Structure formats: C-alpha cells, structure tokens
C-alpha cells in the first residue's frame, strides 16, 4: 500500500501580495518527512497566508511551492488542514467525519474508519450529536478526527487552539502528537510560545512577511540568531 511520498516540500522564493500590500517576500525552506514544523511569529507576520500557500488554497504571486510528486491529484489527497475556527457541516459528528472519507473516495470503509477516528480523539460518545451543538474544543477535535481518518501525509494546522481553554488545548495537542506518532508530518502556526516549545522540533520564524530564522527548535529557543527572534522569545512586542 506504499504510494510515493509527496515529501519533502520545497518552497522557493515564495512571495505573495494583495493589491499594493506585500504580505510575504523571498521565503525559501524545505519541509522534511516526519518533522513537526512550527511557523512562529507575531500577529500579522503572514503565518496564515504562508500555510495557505503551502496547502494550495492560495496561489503565489511569484516563487514556487513544489512537492516531491508532480501529480496534483496525488499531492492534494495526501494533505489535510485544520483551521482556527472549525467548519462543521450541519449534521452529526460522525457524518462530518464520514463526509471527509466519502469525498476522499473511501465510501465503503467510511463507517469503520470514522468510528476509529472518533475513538482516537475521544469523541465516540458524541458520534450522533449534531456537530454544531458541540463546544469549540469538541468541534476542533472533530476536525482533527476528520483529518486523522483520511490519513494524510502532511497535516497543516492554523492556530488550532487560539480560541480554546487550556483543557481543550491539552486534548488537541495530545491528538496532534498521536497523529504525528502515526507518521504524519505536522506543519503548524501559532503565536503561543509555550505551545511552540511543547510541540516543535523545527521552527520557522516569520516577521513582516520575511523568514527571519529557520532552525531546529532547540537552537531557536536557546540561541536565537536574530534580534527579532530573541525579542519575541523574551516576550516583547514586535512591530
């Protein structure tokens, strides 16, 4: 069942602007299989835009986003994304997960895979509850179950716990670890230093749309190369 992997992802000279505003410029890096990459930076740095460019929701103004496989169908199917605000369909929790599976072409195995995914995130007892009636934390876990079920190679997460309380945040982080343990590469944005410290093994630090640092997590938190990164880690406001 081993299909060709879409990693590593090469981002080269990526730039993005809307109207007159340059959001990102001259971004280049690689994402290797199995890593837990955190895109860190103050609000407005361009983290969400970068994530969407990598996932294919936005088209670059210049530069390229290149997967190891050229086949678009292949590399689209091998990714999933969880957004800051979960988008739940107006149906049950289970149906939300099965929807993702059916769309991925997995019709017959959908019920079993959905059950397993819900079990993994601890939501099986809510399987038949209307998803929109669940709490924010529960909905985010449904989104993760959705992602878990389709077994992507790369999971993008855009500030997934920004609007959640600490208990819910812990649950989400544990699920992300489990997903990573199963072999999925994680690429996540956050402005929460603590979360970055807990999860990252590699950090991309963005500021004003530029990639300021690209290092392993250890080096970044102990010996940041740039003054901006140092200031950020100290907790200062960067503008």
């Amino acid at each position, binding site marked *: 069942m081993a299909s060709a992997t879409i990693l590593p992802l090469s981002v080269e000279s990526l730039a993005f602007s809307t109207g007159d505003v340059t959001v990102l410029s001259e971004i280049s890096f690689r994402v290797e299989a199995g890593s837990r990459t955190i895109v860190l930076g103050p609000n407005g740095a361009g983290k969400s835009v970068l994530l969407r460019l990598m996932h294919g929701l936005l088209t670059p103004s210049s530069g390229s986003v290149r997967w190891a496989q050229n086949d678009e169908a292949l590399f689209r199917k091998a990714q999933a994304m969880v957004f800051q605000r979960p988008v739940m369909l107006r*149906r*049950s929790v*289970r*149906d939300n997960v*099965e929807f993702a599976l*059916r769309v991925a072409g997995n019709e017959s195995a*959908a*019920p*079993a895979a*959905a*059950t397993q995914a819900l079990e993994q995130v601890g939501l*099986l007892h809510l*399987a038949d509850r209307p998803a929109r009636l669940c709490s924010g934390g529960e909905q985010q876990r449904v989104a993760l179950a959705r992602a878990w079920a389709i077994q992507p190679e790369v999971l993008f997460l855009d500030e997934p716990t920004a609007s959640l309380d600490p208990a819910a945040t812990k649950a989400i982080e544990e699920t992300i670890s489990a997903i990573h343990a199963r072999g999925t590469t994680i690429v996540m944005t956050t402005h929460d230093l603590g979360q970055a410290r807990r999860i990252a093994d590699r950090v991309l630090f963005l500021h004003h749309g530029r990639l300021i640092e690209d290092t392993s997590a250890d080096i970044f938190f102990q010996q940041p190369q740039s003054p901006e990164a140092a200031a950020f880690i100290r907790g200062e406001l960067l503008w």
Partner: protein
Amino acid sequence: MVKKNLNQPSPFAKKSRLRVAAFLGMTLLTVSQFDGVGVAHAQDKFIVVASTTSTQDSGLFGHILPLFKAKTGIDVRVVAQGTGQALATARKGDADVVFVHDKVAEQKFVDEGFGIDRREVMYNDFVIVGPRSDPAKTAGKDAIAALKKIEAAKAPFASRGDKSGTHAAELRYWKAADIDPQSGKGTWYRETGSGMGPTLNTASAMNAYAFTDRGTWLSFKNRGELTITVEGDTKLFNQYGVMLVNPAKHAHVKRDMGMQFIDWLTSPEGQAAIAAYKIEGQQLFFPNYVVLKKAA
C-alpha cells in the same frame, strides 16, 4: 443508551437516497391524479366548449350541463371568455364547440371555414340599467331613444369595451341611434375593457348607466343604486348560436361528442331544460331552435 453496533453505516447516505425516492414517488402519485396530462384515458369523456362570461355568470351552465352529463356521460368543460376571445380560442383549435351570441361574428367564423353546422339555440334579452334617480330620463321601452337621452345629458355610461357579443350589440345600438360613443370617451362614456360583472361593478360604483344582459343582471349582487330603466324593446333580443369547430381544420376536435352536445341543445329535451332555468322566478333564456329546411 448503549449503541450495539458502532459500525452502523451513516444514516445520511441512506437517508438522502430515500428522500429522492420519496420525492419522485410523491410527484408521480400527485401528477397521476391530473386529467389530460397528455395521456388519453379511454374513460375520460369530455369536450371543451368556448363560451362567454355572461352565459357562465347567468348560471345557465350549472343548470343544463349536469342534465347533459347524466344522459350521455360526457363532461362539458366550459372555458368562459369574451366572445372575441372565445372565437379566437376556437379558431386555434383549443375548443371543440363554440357557444356565443354574436351572429355577425359567428357567421364570419363559418364563412372562414373554422366552424360548421351552426344552429341558433336560444335568445335572451338585454336591458339598460341606471341609477334609481334616472337623471337622463331613460325609463321606458325604447332602447334607441334612451341612448339618445343619455348622450344628450352626458350621463355617465359604463361600457364593456372588450369585443364581446354584448359589446358588439351595444355598439350596434349606438350606431342605430346615430351616435358615436367615442365622442364621449374619457368623459361620460367609460370603457372598462372587462366582462359584464366587472363592468356592472364599475357602473354601480360610478352610478352610471350600463347595457347588460338580463341573466347577468339577475344574478348580480352588487347593485348599489342601480335598477332596470329600459326593457322589453324587441330590438334588445340577443341571439345565441352554437357550432362545431371544423374538424377539417383541426383533426383532433372531438366531432362525435361535440355533435352530441349540439344535438342535445337543439333537441326538445335540451330546449326544455333551457326554458326551465329561472332566476327569481323569471325565465332568462328563450329556446328558439327551428329545424332549417334544407336549401334546395
């Protein structure tokens, strides 16, 4: 509540298929109740008769059609329009039989080959109605004189103005009185462009004179200040004719059933039924079918 089988297939996928099936079934069931949905049912015996609103409003059809159906089992579907529109409907082949009251237009219809076997069936009469106070002093038996008085007094007059048989008759009387009513257009002569009932509504609201058939007047309930001022003038008699839409022009015309209706209308039985129809004890329609001697 413990779920026994956690691997049940999602109810949604099944539900949507069921929903589609239910909708289709329901539509088919409903549509199947309709008559004439392009599928000919052997047991659907009906003909379409184009007639006039004044005939329908008089209530005559409600009286005679059940008798006809009881005898022959044929459903007569009356589409009631103005005479002009009824003849247009028949000309296009959208009716099987025409039953109107404008001899001149009917004759033209036959001459143009659209109608065959025209027979005179019955007549009713027209009356002139007006405000109780009768400002133009029209009361009496002379229709032409009344119209002259109305024009002289410039008294408000509501006309149908809709190319109907009644309207055509009204215009003939104005002509006989040597008056062009259009000279009063917009002032005392008001054309409503609508049927007898709406025109009487307008006359009632405006306290105007109007020219109407007795049948509509007797069943009209919104009289206000209006009453009959002129009646009994033999010139006011209104002849009804019936004819079959020519099957040579429209092959789908239901010739047999149409002729059964025409035959019945002109039979002693049908003629008696027409005579028997009364409103407030008054006979409205006077049967006058006479077997024409064959032209030599």
